């Protein structure tokens, strides 16, 4: 097992407080909250307490929280559900070009039902400019979806402004908050969004627990229908242990976030400052200031992401990449392409996401280990050889690719 864990975006450890809170519900308090008998009593209380904890975490009314099983489910419910709920008012949807696949694919699935989707472009730092959003909105736009922050490049969007703008044009706005919760304070009321998706995993809660905030009056067509759980917005027996864990994690994170956030911010700043001094030809991705604390994303030119990850792993460092290989597709991350990177550069992406327990020693270790790895892989790289000879390693190939695909 690596000792330096820089992949909190992929999975966060469950905080012990949350596990402790879950235990009774994994053992004797196993009842169904809808039961009439006493086995239902504790679970129903626990369910509503978790709802309160989570509502407080994002400054929302308790009644506005719907539990789901993943951020992907929350995004699908919001996109598909809100579009279908408003289809009589219009059939145009606007999303940013750097949304998570669960938003992207939900939007494109709606095209098969007769909706039209416009993707708003972002600038080279991944920012959705209000001006660009305004250009994309049409009179028949019913729904806008812009993430709060990016897990791939760390950029935080000017969400409150985008929300205001959407509302001026009578469009609802959904936001995917998966990357933001647990890193920055979230206040959905102040942000003014109509719905907000997030999952327990981003703040040391259990897997299988997530939520969708629905502003009072926001009523999506449900995705999973059946029983009357979650006011009919999401059928299925409630996963009380996971919901309880999510509630506890939200409560603890809320009280510690300022401190965690400051520390993670300082550590990511260190990397962002020191890495370019140690390694040449790297591209820091995302916004230099408007970015998530504890988030570092870069491209190390001429070497491929997965090869770096495997080498880091050998040195006890766990990290991620947006390269095609790591995503199990043949295409580089659409996010990295959207900010204007060449495909070949996007293949060399490295994403480091810290957590509340990341230390300066972790950073030291990383700073010591990455440069020799880069050297070794570049020594094998035909692209680096070309670069060293003064040739352009990308140009011709990038062009042939764009023609070819």
């Amino acid at each position: 097992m690596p000792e330096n864990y820089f992949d909190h975006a992929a999975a966060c450890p469950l905080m012990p407080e949350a596990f402790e809170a879950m235990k009774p519900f994994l053992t004797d308090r196993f009842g169904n909250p809808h039961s009439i008998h006493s086995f239902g009593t504790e679970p129903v209380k626990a369910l509503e307490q978790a709802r309160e904890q989570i509502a407080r975490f994002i400054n929302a009314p308790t009644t506005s929280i719907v539990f789901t099983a993943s951020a992907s489910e929350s995004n699908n419910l919001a996109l598909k559900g809100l579009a279908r709920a408003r289809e009589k008012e219009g059939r145009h949807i606007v999303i940013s070009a750097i949304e998570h696949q669960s938003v992207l694919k939900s939007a494109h699935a709606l095209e098969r039902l007769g909706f039209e989707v416009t993707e708003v472009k972002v600038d080279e730092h991944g920012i959705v400019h209000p001006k660009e959003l305004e250009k994309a909105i049409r009179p028949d736009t019913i729904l806008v979806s812009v993430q709060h922050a990016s897990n791939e490049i760390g950029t935080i969007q000017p969400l409150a402004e985008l929300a205001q703008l959407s509302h001026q044009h009578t469009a609802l706005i959904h936001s995917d908050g998966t990357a933001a919760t647990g890193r920055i304070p979230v206040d959905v009321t102040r942000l003014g969004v109509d719905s907000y998706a997030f999952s327990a995993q981003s703040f040391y809660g259990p897997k299988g627990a997530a939520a969708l905030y629905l502003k009072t009056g926001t009523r999506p067509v449900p995705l999973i229908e059946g029983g009357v759980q979650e006011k009919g917005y999401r059928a299925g027996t409630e996963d009380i242990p996971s919901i309880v864990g999510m509630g506890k994690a939200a409560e603890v994170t809320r009280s510690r976030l300022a401190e965690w956030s400051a520390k993670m911010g300082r550590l990511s700043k260190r990397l962002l400052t020191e890495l370019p001094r140690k390694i040449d030809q790297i591209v820091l991705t995302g916004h230099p200031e408007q970015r998530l604390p504890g988030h570092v994303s870069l491209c190390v030119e001429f070497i491929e992401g997965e090869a770096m990850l495997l080498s880091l792993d050998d040195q006890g460092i766990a990290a991620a990449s947006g390269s095609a290989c790591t995503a199990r597709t043949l295409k580089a991350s659409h996010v990295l392409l959207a900010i204007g990177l060449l495909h070949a550069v996007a293949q060399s992406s490295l994403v480091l996401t810290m957590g509340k327990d990341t230390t300066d020693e972790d950073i030291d270790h990383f700073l010591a280990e990455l440069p020799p790895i880069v050297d070794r892989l570049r020594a094998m790289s035909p692209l680096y050889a070309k670069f060293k000879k003064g040739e352009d390693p990308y140009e011709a190939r990038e062009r042939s690719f764009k023609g070819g695909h």
Partner: protein
Amino acid sequence: MYSEKVMEHFRNPQNVGEIENPDGIGEVGNPVCGDMMTFHVKVEDNILTDVKFKTFGCGAAIAVSSMVSEMAKGKTIEQALKITNADVAKELGGLPPQKLHCSNLGADALHAAIRNYLEKQKGAK
């Protein structure tokens, strides 16, 4: 994810580099798709006396390159042209399904270098 053999070749790849005045050069793949390999071969008396490669790519791509170079070295042109992607994957103790295209690339790059040599030979005649 990878077999021990793959990791071994990834960690200590054999025959990395370029050959000065190679007899054949093959380049396949496209960095745009995440993998690119160049193979250099030296041929004496129809035998691949030296094979070197450079690879931009994932762990499998690097391991495949290394394995292909080892398998080819010392073989005749005809034997080397018969090395298939399946052979390479097998020698490596298997590859994950989504990585099989890397083994294609490795064999392709070797064959491209050999064909380059053969064409030059034809040209020389």
